[in-house]
């Protein structure tokens, strides 16, 4: 399973999908994840992807085969 972690005040919530199966649910989850990432980036959030056992910030287009994405809050001083 692949997943998108949405970090929020609840700790986090996830959108999960299986990129190896072509079902209505999986396609919908992939669409949802791609839309969320696109909107979040547009509003100043950063996105990370899992590489090995850690995350790195990532500017590349959404790839449903990535094991794990995470959305990071925009940062501000003060």
């Amino acid at each position: 399973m692949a997943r998108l972690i949405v970090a929020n005040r609840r700790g986090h919530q996830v959108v999960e999908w299986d990129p190896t199966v072509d079902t209505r649910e999986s396609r919908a989850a992939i669409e949802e994840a791609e839309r969320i990432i696109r909107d979040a980036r547009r509003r100043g959030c950063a996105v990370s992807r899992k590489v090995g056992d850690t995350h790195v910030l990532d500017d590349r287009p959404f790839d449903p085969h990535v094991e794990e994405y995470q959305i990071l809050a925009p940062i501000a001083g003060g």
Partner: protein
Amino acid sequence: MFDWLRRFLLLDEAAGRRGGAALELPWMHRWHHVPKRSAGPDFRREDYRRARENAREVARATLGERLWTRVQLQGYLDVPSRRFPGLTYRLRIGRRIEVRCAPGVESPWPFAYLCINPTYPLPEEEFFAQLYLYVRDREDEVIRVAAPQPWDQMLGRTF
């Protein structure tokens, strides 16, 4: 119309997979009214407990086992600057970044602490992991937004 209905039903299924909770996308909301060190007036003690538990899990996954163990043991993570040789950012959970300079190195800031907050409320361990990624992978953004401060303090937008 049918496309909208189909999308609505599938999103509803997705909410079901998340245990019934609607997905909260914090960048879609305004948070200026929420007091410092708070998640909002609708949060109860149990919500805070659960949020911090979730946050710990995702912070650990974000940093990886090696870094997570290190921060648990020593209470901070040091990230060497790529922009300013001899300067190190010391990250501590829920607190301002401490700027540390090697002997003979002058800091580009007038004060030793940098205040950087998330733009919406987050549990402090979760933001700590996020801030680590920003400092390591996007230092220029950190330099751009950092507010230098003369004293150490808890962050206002985490809890």
